[in-house]
């Protein structure tokens, strides 16, 4: 650095030129980023605007962000004349239970794999690694088969239980627990606390950052899940937002284009993940960073 701050007199002129070029370079970068950001954001602005348009308006002025006449028809139809509220409720129920379940089971298993010395730990760990490699989409038929055989097809149990299988989450928790110094638990163990007690009242409260990661991943994962609900349910009363909106989009439930209605539904179903994203924004931007290094 010291070399840089004491430039030779001869280098002064080119340096000045370089600085001015960096100025235009920065302006160019801003312009490029601005255009890119517009490309990334404008579609969503169009989506919101179109949801307040009439069908005819949506087709005639697709690019405009201001409806020529504001219409709440799409939202009225969604809430008053469709199953949208049912779908939303099902999505909330499933997401809530799956997230809580994953937080509990992942941290239990992660703690055991990180700290408890038991015979067979290596086997359990190998099982986790193996199942992590199974791509979700090839499980469509297999999962239907087992759900059907167990008699939990078309029930909340069939929707929720399979989604609790989350090897990645166990890994995240295991890695986190390994980073906590052992001395924390040793004092409690000497005091005679049971293993579960040590885990529950001492270790788990320290794991809040990792638990938040699990919450974010589970929430996004189960809220946006579609294919599992396609193969595990059929009755309209158990339809989730993803499945309901997908069927709405593919015309299985309606006729005609009805873009304002579909876009309104898609916009509304995105709101909860946006809220979670905004709350945990800083952490989400680091979640992936941790995943790469780990």
């Amino acid at each position, binding site marked *: 650095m010291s070399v840089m701050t004491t430039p030779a007199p001869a280098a002064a002129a080119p340096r000045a030129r370089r600085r001015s070029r960096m100025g235009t370079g920065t302006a160019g970068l801003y312009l490029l980023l601005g255009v890119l950001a517009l490309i*990334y954001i404008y579609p969503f602005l*169009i989506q919101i605007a179109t949801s307040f348009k009439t069908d005819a308006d949506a087709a005639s002025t*697709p690019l405009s962000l201001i409806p020529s006449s504001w219409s709440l028809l799409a939202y009225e139809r969604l809430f008053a004349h469709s199953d949208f509220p049912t779908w939303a409720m099902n999505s909330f129920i499933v997401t809530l239970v799956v997230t809580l379940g994953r937080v509990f089971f992942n941290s239990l298993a992660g703690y055991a794999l990180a700290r408890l010395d038991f015979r067979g730990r290596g086997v359990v760990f190998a099982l986790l690694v193996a199942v992590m490699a199974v791509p979700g989409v090839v499980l469509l038929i*297999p999962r239907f088969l087992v759900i059907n055989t167990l008699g939990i097809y078309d029930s909340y149990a069939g929707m929720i239980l399979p989604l609790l299988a989350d090897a990645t989450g166990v890994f995240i928790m295991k890695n986190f627990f390994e980073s906590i110094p052992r001395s924390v638990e040793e004092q409690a163990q000497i005091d005679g606390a049971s293993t579960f007690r040590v885990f529950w009242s001492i270790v788990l409260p320290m794991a809040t950052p990792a638990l938040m990661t699990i919450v974010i991943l589970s929430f996004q994962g189960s809220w946006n899940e579609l294919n599992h609900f396609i193969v595990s349910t059929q009755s309209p009363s158990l339809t989730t937002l993803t499945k309901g909106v997908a069927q709405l989009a593919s015309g299985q439930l309606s006729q005609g284009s009805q873009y304002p209605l*579909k876009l309104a539904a898609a916009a509304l179903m995105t709101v909860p993940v946006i809220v979670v994203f905004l709350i945990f924004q800083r952490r989400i931007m680091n979640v992936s960073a941790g995943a790469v290094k780990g």
Partner: protein
Amino acid sequence: MATRRRRRAGADATAGWMFTLPIIIILGVFLVVPVLMAAWVSVSDWTGRGSPFSGDVSFIGLQNYQQILAEPGLPQRDFGVSLRNNLYYVLLVVPLQTILSLLLATAVNRRAMRGVGFFRTAFYFPSVTSAVAITVLWLFLFSATGPINKLISFIGLTGPNWFQDPRGVVHVIAGWFGVESAPGALTSPGPLGVTGWEWLAGPSVAMFALILMAVFTTSGTFMLLFLAALQALDPEVDEAAMMDGANRFQRFTRITVPQLRPTVFTVVTLGLIGTWQVFDQIYTGTQGGPSKTTLTPAYLSYAAAFEGQRWGQGAAISFILFFIIVALTLLQRWALKERGGVPRRRRAAARRTRREGAPA
């Protein structure tokens, strides 16, 4: 003390199993057992009625696999077409999303820059939405009278009716040069009952819209991976190159990109795994149409089983897809080990020499 430790070890063993039991049961029942059941179905003649393990379901060997891979007929042709569609999807999406996300990450990798947080959020935003929501938006954007065609009309052209257009992009381009139909050599059925002309069709216009969507939604996630890697780089290497007179472009291609190799491999691997699993978009948007040009193996396995009641074939397609993904992942792992390890080691060595060689 010794007894206490022994008691502790015993307690550990019990607690270890108690703690991991829920996850073992869930993974076993909903991951391992299903795969075994599907393996059985893929070699059986089960038609979806009753239990696949009842007496009237019989073992038929590899017939389902044969029908898909070897016997001329509709199942084989459908599989061939779905493989072609997905292949073009992978070939375009993986490089495009990797390059775009790297460029986005490079552009926003400036701590001092004003508004950099806004840009990062903007580029990441499409990644938080569900495939369903984004597909609904895409159906509108690329509809006949939608925003994209409106934009195209500004430059005096007429856009296609994207999601209804089964023409292969390569065929369309060939058409511009006067090649309207297949040359004689390409008309006979080739691998998997699909003609050479069809294999070379490229992604259909409809699939092309889905390709753009995939690049749009995934580039933000991968941007974060590249961003993390960029921020972990040693700035001194870049400064040294700057002192040696390398310009910005040279530093990016010769210094930065080689150091990012491990991340590039990660992104390509994740991309390959993800792009072979296209399902939600197809279910929501096109159901395989127009003219089966957006059919993918994942959607085909679902459609064969749940709609066509050809469960054996559906399960067989799942397994073939599984093997494709595992093979590609292993290939990537191998490539990563072969080449990715070298720069990292070299970088560590460079750091060591610098530290040792630096004057106190």
